[in-house]
């Protein structure tokens, strides 16, 4: 028990919780700064400052940075940074939420078929030769549609509500995967098949400002209710009977949280493709660091999930000549971390 960092929270509770939040925030800022500075066109912290000031309308910084740096900063690194952060934060917060409402620490954001649905949407869009913007839009809509179908299907089930959702999620998820396989089979093997495969591996290469602008709204709509209701969501993890008799309208709260978490997941996977492990592992890591209370766990997962994704993105674009798809990197990092977490004797899960 001694080596468990959660011990920090004992005794003088809130002080160390806020200390942890500050450390996480500092970590985020360092990661963000590094990721704008690193790359083919090196940009210094001072130049970033001048560029931001220049955009904000303060004159007199013209000679302080090159045009190439400006383009790399505003059109390549910033959208990529924003998208990486939002995707990581969204998947982690959604994972945390799903784990709570399903009362299952193994739940991840694709439990209701959100990822498989997005995969099918993207595959269909690529097959019909849609533009890259439409691929994102199709992935988003198919993702929402898959979760909606799972939800509706679960209403017809006679078994326990939560179990019914999990079952119908499995059904819809594997149907979508079958759909993807079929499209891969009939797709043109020289250019469609590789782009479908690459999309499914998860990548934010070529992230654009327009994509960042597209996902920011569903993300805001998703994050807001979860952040506002996060303390109350704790009570759902006691089960429906206890939640209701404690004053929580369990069905309604679960529905709202499910909707919000699904929006987050759909928005994330629609721009990034399938990125596994983040939604499962980040909440578990944060539970060890800051405890299980969603009041702190959800913001911590938001910050750390975002930082983690930005870090992974930096790693994947600097470690090799060709970029490694993010989904592969998250799996290589996520699986060992998860193994470590579940094999340790523990108290905070």
């Amino acid at each position, binding site marked *: 028990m001694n080596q468990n960092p959660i011990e920090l*929270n*004992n*005794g003088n*509770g809130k002080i160390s919780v806020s200390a942890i939040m500050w450390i996480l925030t500092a970590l985020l800022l360092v990661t963000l700064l590094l990721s704008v500075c690193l790359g083919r066109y090196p940009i210094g912290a001072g130049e970033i400052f001048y560029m931001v000031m220049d955009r904000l309308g303060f004159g007199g910084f013209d000679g302080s940075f090159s045009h190439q740096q400006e383009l790399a900063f505003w059109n390549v690194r910033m959208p990529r940074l924003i998208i990486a952060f939002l995707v990581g934060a969204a998947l982690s917060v959604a994972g945390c939420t799903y784990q*709570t409402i399903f*009362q*299952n*620490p193994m739940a991840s954001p694709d439990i209701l078929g959100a990822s498989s649905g997005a995969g099918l949407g993207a595959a269909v869009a690529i097959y019909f030769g849609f533009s890259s913007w439409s691929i994102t839009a199709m992935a988003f809509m198919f993702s929402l549609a898959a979760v909606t179908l799972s939800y509706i299907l679960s209403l017809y089930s006679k078994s326990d509500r939560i179990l019914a959702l999990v079952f119908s999620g499995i059904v819809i998820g594997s149907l979508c995967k079958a759909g993807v396989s079929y499209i891969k089979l009939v797709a043109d093997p020289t250019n469609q098949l590789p782009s479908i495969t690459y999309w499914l591996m998860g990548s934010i290469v070529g992230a654009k400002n327009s994509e960042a602008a597209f996902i920011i709204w569903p993300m805001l709509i998703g994050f807001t209710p979860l952040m*506002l*209701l*996060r*303390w*109350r969501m*704790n*009570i759902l*993890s*006691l*089960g*429906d*009977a*206890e939640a*209701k*008799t*404690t*004053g*929580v*309208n369990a069905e309604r709260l679960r529905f709202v949280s499910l909707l919000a978490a699904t929006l987050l997941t759909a928005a994330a996977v629609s721009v990034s493709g399938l990125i596994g492990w983040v939604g499962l592992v980040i909440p578990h890591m944060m*539970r060890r660091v800051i*405890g*299980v*209370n969603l*009041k702190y766990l959800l913001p911590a997962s938001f910050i750390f999930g975002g930082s983690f994704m930005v870090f992974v993105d930096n790693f994947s674009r600097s470690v090799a000549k060709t970029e490694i798809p993010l989904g592969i990197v998250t799996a290589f990092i996520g699986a060992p971390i998860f193994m470590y977490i579940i094999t340790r004797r523990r*108290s*905070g*899960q």
Partner: protein
Amino acid sequence: MSIEVKSLSYAYGKREILNDISLNAGEGELISIIGKNGVGKSTLIKCILRLLTNYKGEVLVNGHNTKRMSVMALASLVAYIPQESSPVFNFTVEDIVLMGTCPTMGYLRSPAKYQKELAMSALSKLGIEDMKNRYFHQLSGGEKQLVIIAKALAQGTKILIMDEPTSNLDFGNQIRILERARALCNEGYTIVQCTHNPEHSYMFSDKVIALKEGRILSVGKPHEVLSCDVVSDIYGLELCESKLYDDKVRTWIPKSAV
């Protein structure tokens, strides 16, 4: 503070579970519902808590029909203590008890100083303040049940509904929980519990309701209801009865054993 059940009937499909059940629990009363497995005790508890709603009849709390109350309003009047509480995630004791203060807060709020005071006073009422920072999963069965009772007290209700609160506990913890329950009633709390132990319900209750085949077999003071005939009838056993300590304690022994 009172809770009243008026001719409540419940059927699951065509199968009748409860038929014309009435009960009345006034302030400071501890009421035990006894009956064999599957007789409908838990169903009755669920109807009282409005976890089941498609029953006939009425459940009144302080004279008001529970069907017309909001979830929040009902939770601020009636609290539930299950047989066993097993949250998936390992909350601290304080976190769990603070969850009980939910009915005292607006929808988007989280516990502030006032709620922390409510939680602390609930813990100290049960004498377990020192457990505040411990983790729920690391507690023993008896300690967990005390924490869940503290959570119920933090709800600020005066009516506690317990579904076999002691059936997972060892002998010592069973007695300790029932003594705590008795002490709470003496302070003015109203408790309705269902139980598998007629001896305990004889010792600790003000009123006993014996159920058989979904109906009330007998209702009244423990010494009236818990006769050898009724207990034998409920459980389908041949028993003989011993009255001990001026009939403060009754015990029933299977005839085959003596």
